[in-house]
């Protein structure tokens, strides 16, 4: 009995998958199975990180080589996404434990809470496995299967709260992600028809292919943008994310949207860079700019905290897309800023949703205007929210700052200053919606009615703070993840730049 060292690469898929099946089988051990799976996943990804600094690695599932079998591949971007998923996933698992124990502790509607906890764990573990599989895969049809796995589990999770609003939102979410997957699949069909292979490396080698490939790429991209909620197609995101349970909102906003974005990123920058035209890049950039502005304005207008956070997700996703036209024309690898942004946003947004969920649990509502003096009851949570907000605004030490700085400087350097202006205006708007909440959380008015503080649970408060701090400190350790990205760069064909 011996395991080959290269088998470590499948650990992020296999471990949560096993845990998910066990969670469904037995309810009592669900949390401990999930927790140990998350820990094992984190350890596995860290080991992979240590090993992969020398360069990208690939793994042939079933021992079948590329055109026939499915290849898993690990390089800089996929490694960082895996790390992001592992860290955020561990935080969410701990938080969810605190969340459900807190709710079950109060005997109101206990049956509903037990049902939610019962089904949360298997769905969450399988979703984690699906996301990891997505980040590892190097096969366009395997991506489709993982995408479907992600969307089924995400929709089921979104409907878990049982409220009519959340179910309507989940239904719409399911339909939209189904439409996105179908559009993606049609693109895959066209690609297979033209090239006869599904493996990314082989597709990159036979790039080109004329008009058909443009159409295929367009179909895949539109489907993925729909799933990533790019600006005009974002309509489903705020209700689905805002009406779900708090840990679910953190999962959906922090991790799930990154899955489809990662595929899009891979397709445009890695596999089919020759099929991408400058016009398409500019279009995506404009949509991203629209997302930044529209999402921020909507976030400022919201009256409910969770909706505000959800709209801020729409706006933050815009930054990921505005980087497309900038990154493509630059040779110095600005695309690492995109991955970096996704990393920081994932941690910060999960923390923000967790903090909002804790506030909701304690007050029984999340009307922003009635949140004055939250600091008194929940100091750690208020602090976590503020730090996550710092990251969204892009103030100096945070990871968001580094990413926005990279965007800004490259837009000025390439004399495409208009993108830079959008980035700055977006930051200003985001500071408006962050301060709107933070000022209420921290300023305790004189005549604050004495509010009964519920007993605090450390699992509810600390994961959010730790994740927010990670997002904040990401800026200080920025050279390290950028080095990891460089390690994987060998496999990315960006040296040419410039487009066809």
């Amino acid at each position, binding site marked *: 009995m011996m395991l080959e060292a290269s088998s470590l690469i499948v650990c992020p898929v296999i471990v949560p998958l096993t845990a998910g099946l066990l969670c469904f089988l037995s309810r009592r051990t669900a949390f401990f199975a999930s927790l140990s799976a998350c820990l094992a996943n984190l350890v596995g990804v860290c080991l992979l990180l240590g090993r992969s600094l020398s360069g990208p690695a690939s793994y042939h599932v079933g021992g079948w080589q590329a055109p026939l079998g499915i290849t898993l591949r690990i390089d800089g971007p996929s490694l960082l996404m895996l790390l992001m998923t592992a860290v955020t996933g561990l935080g969410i698992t701990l938080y969810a434990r605190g969340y459900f124990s807190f709710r079950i502790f109060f005997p109101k509607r206990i049956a509903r809470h037990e049902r939610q906890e019962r089904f949360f764990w298997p769905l969450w573990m399988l979703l984690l496995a699906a996301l990891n599989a997505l980040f590892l895969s190097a096969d366009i*049809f395997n991506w*489709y*299967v993982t995408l*479907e796995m992600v*969307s*089924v589990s995400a*929709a*089921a999770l979104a*409907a878990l709260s*049982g409220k*009519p*609003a959340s*179910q*309507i939102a*989940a*239904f*719409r979410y*399911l*339909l*939209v992600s*189904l*439409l996105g997957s*179908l559009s993606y*699949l*049609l693109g895959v*069909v066209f690609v*297979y*028809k033209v090239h*006869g292979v*599904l493996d990314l490396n082989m597709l990159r080698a036979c790039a080109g292919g004329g008009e058909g490939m443009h159409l295929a790429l367009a179909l895949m991209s539109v489907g993925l943008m729909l799933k990533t909620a790019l600006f005009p197609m974002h*309509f*489903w995101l705020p209700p689905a994310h805002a009406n779900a349970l708090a840990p679910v909102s953190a999962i959906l906003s922090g991790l799930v949207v990154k899955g489809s974005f990662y595929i899009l990123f891979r397709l445009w920058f890695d596999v089919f860079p020759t099929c991408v035209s400058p016009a398409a890049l500019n279009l995506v950039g404009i949509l991203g700019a629209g997302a930044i502005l529209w999402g921020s304005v909507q976030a400022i207008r919201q009256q409910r905290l969770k909706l505000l956070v959800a709209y801020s997700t729409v706006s933050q996703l815009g930054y990921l897309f505005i980087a497309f036209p900038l990154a493509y024309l630059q040779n110095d690898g600005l695309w690492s800023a995109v991955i970096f942004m996704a990393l920081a946003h994932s941690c910060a947004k999960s923390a923000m949703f967790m903090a909002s969920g804790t506030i909701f649990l304690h007050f029984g509502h999340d009307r922003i205007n009635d949140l004055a003096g939250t600091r008194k009851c929940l100091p750690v949570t208020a602090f976590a929210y503020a730090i996550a907000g710092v990251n969204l605004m892009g103030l100096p030490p945070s990871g968001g700052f580094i990413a926005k700085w990279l965007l800004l400087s490259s837009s000025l350097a390439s004399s495409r200053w208009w993108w830079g202006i959008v980035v700055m205006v977006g930051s200003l708007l985001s500071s408006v919606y962050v301060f709107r909440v933070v000022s209420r959380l921290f300023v305790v008015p004189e005549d604050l009615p004495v509010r009964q503080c519920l007993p605090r649970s450390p699992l509810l408060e600390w994961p959010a703070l730790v994740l927010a701090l990670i997002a904040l400190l990401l800026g200080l350790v920025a050279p390290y993840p950028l080095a990891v990205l460089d390690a994987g760069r060998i496999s990315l064909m960006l040296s040419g730049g410039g487009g066809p």
Partner: protein
Amino acid sequence: MTNLLYSLGGVLLFTMGFFALIACSHPLRKILAVNVMSTGVFLILVASAYRPESAGNIDPLPHAMVLTGIVVSVSVTALALVLACRVQETSNLAFLKQQRNGSEESGE
């Protein structure tokens, strides 16, 4: 030639389903529309299994892909149907009102 006919039929099904998905507001119709769309994609996929270059050989890969796709679509359809039923049960009144008003909330 038959191959092309199937492909065109698939395209037609796909876009018809797409139109119905946008135009119809009833949840059941939307689910059906998505199903029609996926059938269209599978039809194109099956048609692409015929490779004239490979001497009468039929490529088995699209068949396996279609089988995978069908299973996925069955499970998603089941989930969507149950979800739609739950929506109808728990919020019948609110949902109908929303539908009648035709507000943008019920758009997709």
